[in-house]
C-alpha cells in the first residue's frame, strides 16, 4: 500500500470514530461556530452600516476558530488516542507512522476547514459584510492555516504529560491567536510594539493577513503579493511542527 492509501485508510478508520463522537463534535462545533458567527453578528448590530468592522471582526474570529478547532482539537485528540493506546494499536496494524498521524490529522483538518467556511458563509449572509472578492485564495489559506495549526497541535502533544491536562494546556493559544488577530476588538492597540510584531509572526496572523486582502478592494496580483510573506510564515511553522513531530513525538503514554 502506498503512503497515501495508508493515510486515507487510517483517516477512514479515525473518521468513523471521530464523526460519531457526538459529544466531542458538538462541543467543538458549537463553541467554534457560536463564537465565530456570534461576535461578528453582534458587531453588526452594534455598528450597523460599517461592513469593514464586521469583516475585521469575522477575520479576527476566524483566527480563534481555527486555533480551537485545529490546534486545540489536534492536541487533545492525539493525547487521548495516545493514552488509550490507540496510536500504538494503529502502528501495530502495520501502518507507517506518517499514515497513523496523517489519518488522524486529516479528519481534524477537514472539520476545522468546514467550521471556518461555514462561519464565513453564515456571517456574510447574516450581516452587512460582503463576500470575499477572491474566495479561492481565501479558501486556500484557510486550508493551509488549518493544516499548519493541526500539525502544530500534534507537535504540542510532546510536552503534554497526560490526556486530562491536554485541554487546559492548549487554552492559552486561542487567546493569543485572537489577540494578535484583533478578535477582541481594539485591545490590540494597547499592546507594546514588539509584542505586535511577534504576534504578526503567528500562523493565524498569516491567514488573517491574506483574509483581509481577499476581502478588501484590489486585484488578484495585489492578493498574490499580500500572500507571499504569509506563505513563508506558514511554511516555517509547518517545518518546525514536522521537525518536532519527527524527532520527539511520543506514541505511548508516559510511564514514569
Amino acid at each position: 500500500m502506498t503512503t497515501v492509501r495508508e493515510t486515507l485508510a487510517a483517516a477512514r478508520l479515525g473518521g468513523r470514530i471521530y464523526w460519531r463522537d457526538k459529544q466531542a463534535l458538538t462541543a467543538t462545533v458549537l463553541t467554534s461556530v457560536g463564537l465565530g458567527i456570534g461576535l461578528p453578528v453582534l458587531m453588526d448590530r452594534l455598528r450597523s452600516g460599517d461592513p469593514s468592522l464586521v469583516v475585521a471582526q469575522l477575520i479576527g474570529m476566524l483566527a480563534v476558530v481555527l486555533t480551537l478547532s485545529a490546534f486545540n482539537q489536534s492536541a487533545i485528540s492525539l493525547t487521548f488516542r495516545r493514552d488509550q493506546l490507540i496510536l500504538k494499536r494503529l502502528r501495530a496494524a502495520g501502518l507507517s507512522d506518517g499514515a497513523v498521524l496523517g489519518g488522524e490529522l486529516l479528519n481534524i483538518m477537514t472539520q476545522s476547514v468546514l467550521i471556518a467556511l461555514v462561519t464565513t458563509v453564515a456571517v456574510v449572509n447574516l450581516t452587512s459584510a460582503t463576500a470575499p472578492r477572491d474566495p479561492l485564495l481565501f479558501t486556500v489559506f484557510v486550508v493551509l492555516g488549518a493544516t499548519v495549526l493541526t500539525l502544530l497541535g500534534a507537535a504540542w502533544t510532546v510536552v503534554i504529560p497526560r490526556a486530562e491536562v491536554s485541554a487546559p494546556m492548549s487554552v492559552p493559544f486561542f487567546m493569543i491567536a485572537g489577540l494578535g488577530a484583533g478578535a477582541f476588538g481594539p485591545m490590540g492597540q494597547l499592546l507594546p510594539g514588539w509584542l505586535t510584531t511577534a504576534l504578526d509572526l503567528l500562523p493565524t496572523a498569516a491567514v488573517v493577513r491574506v483574509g483581509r486582502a481577499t476581502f478588501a478592494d484590489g486585484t488578484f496580483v495585489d492578493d498574490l503579493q499580500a500572500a507571499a510573506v504569509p506563505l513563508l510564515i506558514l511554511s516555517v511553522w509547518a517545518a518546525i511542527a514536522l521537525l518536532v513531530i519527527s524527532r520527539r513525538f511520543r506514541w505511548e503514554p508516559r510511564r514514569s
Partner: protein
Amino acid sequence: MAAIQVDGLRKSYGDFEAVKEISFTVARGEIFALLGRNGAGKSTTIEILAGFQRPDGGTVRVLGLDPVKDRAKVRKSTGIMLQEAGFFPDLTVARTVDSWRDLVPAARPRAEALELVGLTEKAGTKVRQLSGGEKRRLDLALATLGRPDLLFLDEPTTGMDPAARKATWDVVTDLAERGTTVLLTTHYLEEAQRLATTMAIMDRGAIVASGGMAETLAAQTGRVAFELPSGVEVQDLPVDVTAMEGTTVICRVPDPDVAAQTLLGWAGERGLRLRGLEVRTATLEDLFLDLAGKEKA
C-alpha cells in the same frame, strides 16, 4: 536464514536496565517461547523486535531486516499482538475487523477471521461489552488478519477461560503447522510447554536458560512425591529424599518412573501403602523452581 536473530541486545529505561545483553535465534517455522516472571523484560524484547522501540545496544534482525530502519518492510510480513493496546470501544467486533481489513493488504475475509478465534457469535457486539478474554481473541484475529509469516504474541491468553485458552493454543499450533513462525511470551508455563519447540527463560533482563523444549526438560530431574507412611523413618526409604513438605516426601530424580517402581516394590514387601503418590516427569515449573533455588543459594 533465521526468522529472528538477536545478538547482545540491551535496553534501559533511564538508569534501569530492562534487557541485559541477551542473544537468541528463532528458526523459521518454529514456535519460540520467551518465558519469565512479570518485569523480566519480555515485552520490552518483543517491542524492540517489532520495531516499536530502539535498542540501546546489540543487533537485531527480523526476517533478515532491521526492525527499526526497515519497519515498513518488516511489518508487511509480521503480525503482532501487543500485551496491551487500545480498541475503539464503540465499534462492533465486525466493524473492527472490517476497519482492519482496510489497513492490511490481502486480509482474510471477516467471517474467516472471526471463525478462527471463535468470535462469530459476537460479531454484532460492541468492543466495550467484550470480556477481557474475548478482547484478547479479537486481538489475535487482528494480528493474524494478514496471514503473517511471523507472529509476535505477547501474553496471548491472559484473561481467557480454560476453553478459550485451549482454543487459542490450537489456533497457534495450526498457524505454525502452516509455516508461520511464532514468538510468544508467557508466564503460563503450561502454555509454553504445550506450544513451544524452543524456549528461553528471562529473569531480570537476562536469559538464564534456553534450548529445545524437549531436550531441556529431559535434562531436568523429575519428581516423585508421597505421604510418609506412619512408623517409617526417612532414612529407611529406598530412594534419596530431596525435601519434606509436612509429611509429604519429595524426591527429585532423573528418572521418576524407575524411582516410583522401586518405592512401590519396597512398600509392597512391607505391606505399606503409599498414599498420595505422585509421579511427574520434569515440567517447566520444576525448571523455574530450580532456577529460583539456585539464585537464592
